[in-house]
């Protein structure tokens, strides 16, 4: 089957908080924007029952509810949504290629907001019971199905303890497997104190999951005591794992720089180091992974994509114009000698009677435009172009050498007077 090809200004991979925020910024900047999400729009935020630390919601808000609002706002700005998974990407060339099962998308910029997924324990026989057979990663999704039952929570971070407390509203008993010594948890102290005081919660300290067992559906979690080495089979109806996340970066491997744990490196502008490619949110190597920080990342990436596209257009259509012989003068607004040559450049342009087009670039403000001409350009550099190609570069900025160089390129040379 021949794949369909569609063109976009921006393709955003991932529909969590950072991807949706980038989409809002790109859509509002009137860029033709596509967001690709592999399952539910909202990403990992939809796994959280209640978000109490996202500003603007003093009463708290459900993860799903908050993400619905993000999505609505992105749709308002004309962002298109496609619910499928990305099979491969080509990011190096000017036209970026993003492949899905049925369609090939061509884009000027790509924003990687692929986020993470819950990590699994990798204990024996875990894969037999994933999702519907007893092991879950989403209390919001599966709490009601556990009304009156006994459940286990693995982990002691904020997510484990807070979602565990939420589960106590439904389950008869919530048993928490904690890797640390008695009383020690990875979560914040408020959550810890509340959990210790919750009569429905019990704790198995110094334990790790050894294996899962059950006939068709999970019924036993075998915990190993790290101090004694003893293995205890705990009877449960289901098990919730909250032991952190791993990034969704498989399709980007070998294409962008990643940390050892496969998170994507970016600079402060969310650039991954390839022109026109940005990454934001939990997929990045960064300090704090929260909805609030994802939103900040997404805004930066969205604006960076917008700026990149505007600059590309300006560079191609204006700076590298093909109508006339081009004279490009690099100066710096904070460097007086280079600034003072500006009137002379304009004079030279007019002497050539419309044969020459002058463009000036302020290196101080337009560093990325300078980067496109070649790295490490000093102020007081001149470029000479013909048919959109650089023919000559020169650091001599006296009238005579500039005019001599232009005379080699124009159809009707003019007399050089100094």
């Amino acid at each position, binding site marked *: 089957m021949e794949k369909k090809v569609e063109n976009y200004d921006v393709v955003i991979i991932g529909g969590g908080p950072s991807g949706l925020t980038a989409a809002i910024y790109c859509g509002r900047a009137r860029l033709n924007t596509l967001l690709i999400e*592999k*399952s*539910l729009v909202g990403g990992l935020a*939809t796994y959280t029952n209640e978000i109490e630390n996202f500003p603007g919601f003093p009463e708290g808000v459900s993860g*799903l509810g908050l993400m619905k609002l993000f999505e609505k706002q992105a749709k308002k700005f004309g962002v298109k*949504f496609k*619910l*499928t*998974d990305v099979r491969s990407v080509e990011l190096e060339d000017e036209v970026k290629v993003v492949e*899905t*099962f*049925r369609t090939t998308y061509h884009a000027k910029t790509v924003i990687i907001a692929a986020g993470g997924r819950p990590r699994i324990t990798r204990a024996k026989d875990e894969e037999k019971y994933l*999702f*519907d057979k007893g092991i879950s990663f*989403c209390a*919001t*999704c*599966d709490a*009601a*199905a556990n009304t009156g039952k006994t459940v286990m929570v693995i982990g002691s971070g904020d997510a484990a303890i807070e979602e565990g407390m939420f589960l106590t509203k439904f389950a008869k008993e919530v048993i928490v497997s904690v890797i640390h010594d008695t009383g020690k948890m990875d979560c914040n102290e408020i959550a810890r104190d509340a959990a210790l005081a919750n009569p429905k919660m019990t704790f198995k300290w110094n334990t790790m999951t050894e294996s899962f067992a059950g006939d068709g559906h999970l019924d036993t979690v075998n915990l190993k005591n790290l101090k004694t080495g003893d293995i205890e089979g705990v009877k449960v109806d289901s098990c919730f794992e909250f032991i952190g996340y791993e990034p969704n970066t498989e399709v980007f491997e070998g294409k962008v720089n990643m940390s050892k744990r496969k998170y994507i490196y970016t600079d402060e502008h969310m650039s991954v180091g390839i022109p026109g490619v940005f990454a934001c949110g939990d997929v990045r190597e960064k300090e704090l992974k929260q909805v609030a920080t994802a939103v900040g990342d997404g805004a930066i990436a969205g604006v960076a994509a917008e700026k990149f596209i505007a600059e590309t257009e300006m560079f191609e259509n204006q700076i590298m114009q093909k109508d006339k012989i081009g004279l490009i003068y690099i100066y710096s607004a904070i460097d007086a000698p280079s600034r003072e040559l500006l009137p002379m450049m304009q004079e030279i342009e007019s002497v050539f009677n419309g044969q020459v087009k002058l463009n000036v670039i302020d290196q101080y403000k337009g560093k990325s435009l300078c980067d496109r001409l070649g790295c490490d350009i000093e102020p007081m550099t001149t470029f000479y172009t013909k048919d959109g190609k650089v023919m000559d570069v020169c650091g001599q900025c006296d009238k005579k050498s500039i005019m001599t160089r232009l005379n080699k390129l124009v159809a009707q040379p003019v007399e050089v007077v100094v």
Partner: protein
Amino acid sequence: MKEVTLDCLGEACPVPLVKAQKALEDLAIGDVLIVSIDHSCAMKNVPEWAREAGHNVEIEEVDDGEWEVVIEKAK
């Protein structure tokens, strides 16, 4: 190539997933199963399971909070 629609509207997890797994068993390679769901939790496990099993998956949002998970059986 056959196309089968499975109506799971109004059904919560894990019912849509269990039904989808059963329905796909009866299909041949290249056949398409369309699962209609309106519980957002099923949007997490149904596509995830189908991709993990190696099938091709695309989702259409047919209405606000109502989706069709399109699964093409690949093996």
